[in-house]
């Protein structure tokens, strides 16, 4: 498809317009944090950021979501579902986080069962990506098939070049959007900008300091469920908090429960849950298939590097590095991958 140009000076105008016409989700500064929130205009948006503290996955799978509300008086039962999603634009998401949304798709729009809540949001939203300008020491998207300027999953991808944004139109949805705001998305000769973007991508791809290589890891995992490795330091130091799963853009597990104020009415809520919690798999009868941190850690990492791959033919990790940054005890997926490789080579 084609490409366009937005002058930096016009980005506020674009954001204000988008906020007026759509539900606009964009990165904002909340004290020390960078988070994706719904914004009312350009004034709240922060585009000069490296990696948001929490990924924008909440746009498609909110931490709390009402699936329906009910009223049950004993005689009559009424169930009301919420309306479908409104038109939404997710603006300024980084390529790794957008790739993560693609790992959600087969889960929620699966072969057997879809998910109306997710699909409705996904169908009604446009994703405007923003290429990275910097590589952090914790980043490793290149090793997971992505890249700092990767277009995968975006409807539009903006790349900051000098005082302009180079805009790549990737999908029909993106095309419709640039046509609707054609006074901002200028039609210009973009040959130079395209070259500059390639240069930037090349420069950034040389800046990764973490050496991660997935080759052979899945094959090792296929044949080795029990490895002494899982009884090592990682499971000893893990504190079973949910940080890694909540900050992870590809973690999609949830819990479902009712929320009532004690009268006849209430809401059924689904909310994020974490496989690192002991109660996650605890059955009512008291049996727990993953009773200790060892099984839980193994399950989480196997899910990322094997199970998701087995099931959906996609690695369940995009290399955003958030779990590496936020883990209180420095459990590091890149170290685990490298260690497993070493185990493989010695086996």
């Amino acid at each position, binding site marked *: 498809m084609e490409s366009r140009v937005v002058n930096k000076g016009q980005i506020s105008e674009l954001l204000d317009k988008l906020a007026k016409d759509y539900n606009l989700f964009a990165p904002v500064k909340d004290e020390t944090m960078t988070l994706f929130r719904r914004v009312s205009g350009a004034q709240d948006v922060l585009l000069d950021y490296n990696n948001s503290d929490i990924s924008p996955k909440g746009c498609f799978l909110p931490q*709390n979501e009402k699936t329906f509300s009910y009223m049950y008086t004993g005689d009559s039962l009424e169930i009301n579902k919420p309306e479908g999603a409104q038109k939404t634009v997710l603006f300024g998401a980084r390529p790794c986080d957008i790739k993560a949304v693609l790992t959600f798709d087969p889960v929620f729009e699966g072969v057997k069962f879809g998910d109306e809540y997710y699909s409705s949001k996904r169908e009604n939203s446009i994703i405007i990506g923003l290429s990275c300008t910097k590589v952090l020491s914790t980043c490793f998207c290149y090793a997971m098939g992505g890249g700092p300027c990767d277009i995968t999953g975006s409807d539009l991808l903006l790349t900051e070049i000098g005082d302009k944004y180079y805009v790549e139109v990737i999908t029909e949805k993106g095309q419709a959007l640039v046509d609707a705001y054609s006074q901002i998305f200028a039609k210009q000769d973009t040959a130079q900008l395209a070259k500059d973007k390639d240069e930037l991508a090349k420069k950034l791809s040389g800046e990764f300091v973490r050496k991660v290589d997935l080759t052979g890891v899945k094959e090792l995992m296929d044949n080795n469920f029990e490895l002494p490795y899982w009884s090592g330091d990682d499971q000893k130091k893990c504190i079973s908090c949910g940080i890694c799963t909540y900050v992870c853009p590809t973690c999609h597990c949830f819990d479902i429960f009712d929320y009532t104020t004690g009268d006849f009415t209430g809401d059924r809520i689904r909310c994020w849950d974490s496989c690192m919690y002991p109660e996650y798999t605890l059955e009512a009868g008291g049996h727990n298939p993953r009773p200790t941190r060892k099984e839980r850690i193994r399950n989480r990492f196997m899910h990322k590097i094997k199970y998701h791959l087995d099931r959906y033919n996609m690695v369940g990790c995009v290399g955003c590095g958030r779990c590496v940054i936020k883990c209180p*005890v420095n459990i590091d997926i890149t170290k685990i991958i490298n260690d497993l490789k070493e185990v493989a080579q010695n086996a």
Partner: protein
Amino acid sequence: MMNLAQQLQEQAKKLLEEKKVDLVIGFGQGTELARNTPVFIDSPEGVSALTWGPFCANNLAKYLSDYNNAPGGTAVVVKGCDARSVNRLLDDNQILREKVVVIGVPCPGQLEWQKVSAEIKPGSTLKEVVDNGDSYTVKTDSGDYSFSKKDYLLHRCLVCENPNPVISDITIGKELPVKNYEERFAEVQDLEKLAVNEKSAYWDKQFTRCLRCYACRNVCSVCTCEVCVFDQMMPMWVSKRTNLSENTAFHITRAFHVAGRCVDCGECDRVCPMDIPLRKLNVKIHKDLGDLFNSPTPGTEPGLISPLGGFSPGDPEEFM
């Protein structure tokens, strides 16, 4: 002269060789230059993994209760603040004194690794850290970087009460002077001065961010309940729904649950992925405990009875 890390390794080796302990819990190099991580060493050959420096933020006393039922003894490397946890765990009968060897290291303050990391060229390797008193110099293969303690230390370290471990079987390094301890209530006092609605607005803003990952609870060395009230399904006291009211209920309960036992190691505050200033809740309780009961920080001496865990006829009855 050996540096502190070498001395630590020496001592750990001795303990393991003489079979005084089966396990040494200490700090090892993490996966980032400015980060250390807990390591669990069970053989004399493994001690070379032990390190020491201003990136040893974790409170390793947290792990002691995991090994309480282990057949052999456990040695743990503690800073001053962590040592208070050891005392507290002993007082709560969570660990047995004879099974624990405390390796105390006087601590001149821990750096905030993310702040430090942001300034160092990615991919550098650490060579050495030099303590200049008011600052640290981090020497790497990509050059030397200087970090002033005022700007780069964890806040808890700026107002440290016990740089020297309050309980220790083996002490490594020299005793350090106490600095700026008097200022530790300053932040709480600032908040107390606000009007009710301003306080409410301040905390609402903080609690709204909460993800309920429970890292603050799980990292806490004195949170030792077998089943936590927040995990209980029957009855479900606090809903898993992450909204302001449930989050507020969680944070008030968490803070108050450790009232009188919280040793102010500041780990909850450090690990919070959403930067909620949790220490401001705990320190408020410490301040009130001091004001009302003249009670010192829990864990500063062995055998301290928490004013909330005992009764004396002289207790103030503020609420009557």
